[in-house]
C-alpha cells in the first residue's frame, strides 16, 4: 500500500513538474547557456571589468614556501564553500548525532536565547537576534565559520594581517613573540598571536573576544573564556588548509573542531576582491521591501 502511494506521488510530481522541466531544459537561446552558469568563473567579471580567473585544474603545484601564507585565497571547492549557513562546517546543526555539540547546561541555556535565520531553530527575518543582520561585525571565530570568502593575507616581519571580503574587515595576528593579555578588555576580534610550528604551519591563538558575537551562523554561543586555535597549513604553493578548534569550558564540556582542514586555493596577484559591506541603509531597504513582507510585519 505504501509503495503504491509513493509511486502515485512520484507520478503526480512528474506530471506537475513536466511543463516546468521542459522549459528549464529548453535549448539555450543565447550565448548564456546553462553550461556557462555551471562554470560561472568562465564569464564572471571583477570590479575592474576583467574576467575572474578560473582555477587552473590538473596543474601540479610548486612546493610550499617556508613560513609564508601570504596571498589571496579562495575556498578551493567553490567560492561559496565557506558560507557555513548551517553553522560551523565541521559541526553543522543538522540533527546528526555526530554533530551534536558538547554543551554545558549554561551553553544550552545560552543557545536557547539565540534566534538564527537558518537551521532547525530558524525564525522569520524580522524575528532574528543575529547581530550580523544588524551589521555588527562577525568577530572571531565566526569570521572563519560563516561567510569565509576571498581572504587576502599579508605578512610583515612582526605580524600577519588578514583581510576578509565579508564585511570588508581586517585583523592582525602578532607574530613577534608577544603573549595574549592576561585580563584583556573584550574586543570583537579579540587578541591574536601566531607561531610557526613547522615550516608550513602557522598556529594562531585568540582570546578576549566579545561575548556579543556568535560562534557561527546558527547561533552557537561563547563566553568571555573562549579560546580559539586556528591552524593555517600551507600544503603547497597553491593550497592552504584552515583548521579551527574552539575551547570554552563555560559553554562546552570539551574542545571541538569547528573547521577541519578547510581547503583554500591561491588566486593570481591581480585578483580583485569585490566589496561586501554591511550597509545599514541597504539593510533597511532590504527589510522594507522583503524582510518585513516575508515576516508579515509592515508592507512594501
Amino acid at each position: 500500500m505504501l509503495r503504491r502511494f509513493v509511486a502515485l506521488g512520484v507520478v503526480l510530481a512528474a506530471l506537475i513538474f513536466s511543463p516546468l522541466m521542459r522549459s528549464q531544459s529548453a535549448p539555450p537561446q543565447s550565448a548564456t547557456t546553462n553550461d556557462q552558469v555551471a562554470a560561472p568563473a568562465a564569464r564572471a567579471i571583477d570590479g575592474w571589468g576583467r574576467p575572474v580567473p578560473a582555477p587552473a585544474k590538473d596543474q601540479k603545484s610548486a612546493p610550499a614556501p617556508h613560513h609564508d601564507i601570504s596571498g589571496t585565497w579562495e575556498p578551493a571547492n567553490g567560492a561559496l564553500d565557506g558560507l557555513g549557513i548551517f553553522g560551523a562546517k565541521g559541526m553543522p546543526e543538522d540533527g546528526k548525532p555526530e554533530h551534536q555539540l558538547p554543551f554545558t547546561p549554561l551553553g544550552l541555556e545560552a543557545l536557547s536565547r539565540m534566534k538564527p535565520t537558518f537551521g532547525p531553530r530558524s525564525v522569520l527575518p524580522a524575528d532574528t537576534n543575529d547581530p550580523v543582520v544588524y551589521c555588527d561585525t562577525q568577530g572571531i571565530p565566526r569570521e572563519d565559520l560563516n561567510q569565509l570568502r576571498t581572504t587576502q593575507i599579508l605578512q610583515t616581519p612582526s605580524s600577519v594581517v588578514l583581510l576578509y571580503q565579508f564585511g570588508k574587515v581586517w585583523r592582525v595576528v602578532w607574530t613577534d613573540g608577544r603573549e595574549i593579555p592576561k585580563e584583556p578588555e573584550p574586543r570583537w576580534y579579540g587578541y591574536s598571536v601566531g607561531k610557526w610550528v613547522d615550516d608550513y604551519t602557522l598556529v594562531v591563538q585568540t582570546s578576549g573576544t566579545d561575548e556579543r558575537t556568535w560562534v557561527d551562523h546558527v547561533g552557537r554561543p561563547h563566553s568571555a573564556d573562549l579560546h580559539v586555535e586556528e591552524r593555517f597549513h600551507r600544503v603547497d604553493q597553491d593550497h592552504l588548509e584552515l583548521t579551527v578548534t574552539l575551547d570554552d569550558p563555560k559553554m562546552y564540556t570539551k574542545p571541538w573542531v569547528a573547521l577541519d582542514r578547510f581547503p583554500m586555493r591561491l588566486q593570481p596577484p591581480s585578483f580583485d576582491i569585490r566589496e561586501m559591506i554591511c550597509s545599514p541603509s541597504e539593510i533597511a531597504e532590504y527589510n522594507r521591501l522583503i524582510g518585513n513582507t516575508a515576516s508579515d510585519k509592515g508592507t512594501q
Partner: protein
Amino acid sequence: MKGKFLMIYALGIGVSMFSAPLFAHHGNAAYDTDKKITVKGTVTQWIWSNPHCMLQLDVTDDSGQSVHWIAETENPSTMTRNGWTEKSFKSGDQVTVTAIPLKNSRPVGRIIEVVTANGEKLSGIRVPQTGSDSPTAYPK
C-alpha cells in the same frame, strides 16, 4: 506593454525538487521551498546591493490587475560569479522570473532563474538542505 501573467504553483509531492534558498543573512524560514512560481512582467527597478539584490517588476494577473512583485537574489559579489551585473536589467525590460514563493503568499520570491526578453537566462543560487555540501548555481 503589459506583462502577461503566468503563475504556476507546483507542489512537491513525494520528491523534494528544490533545495533551500540561500540567504547570506536572512534565512529560509519565510519561504516555501517545496514550491516554485513563474511570473512574467515588466521591470520597474533593479537594485544591485547587499545583502541581497532585488528585482522589482509589475505583473498583470488574469483579472487585469497589476501586481508589484519583488524577487531577490544573493549579494552582488555572489551573483557576479553567475554572470549577473549591475546592468543586467533596466526599467521596462520584459522578464520571466521563476522563483521560490513566500509561505504567506505575498508577492515576493527567491529567484531560481530569470529569462530576459532576448532569451538570456540568468541563474540564481541554490544550496543543499544541510551544511555538508556546497551551494551551486541553478539549475542542478
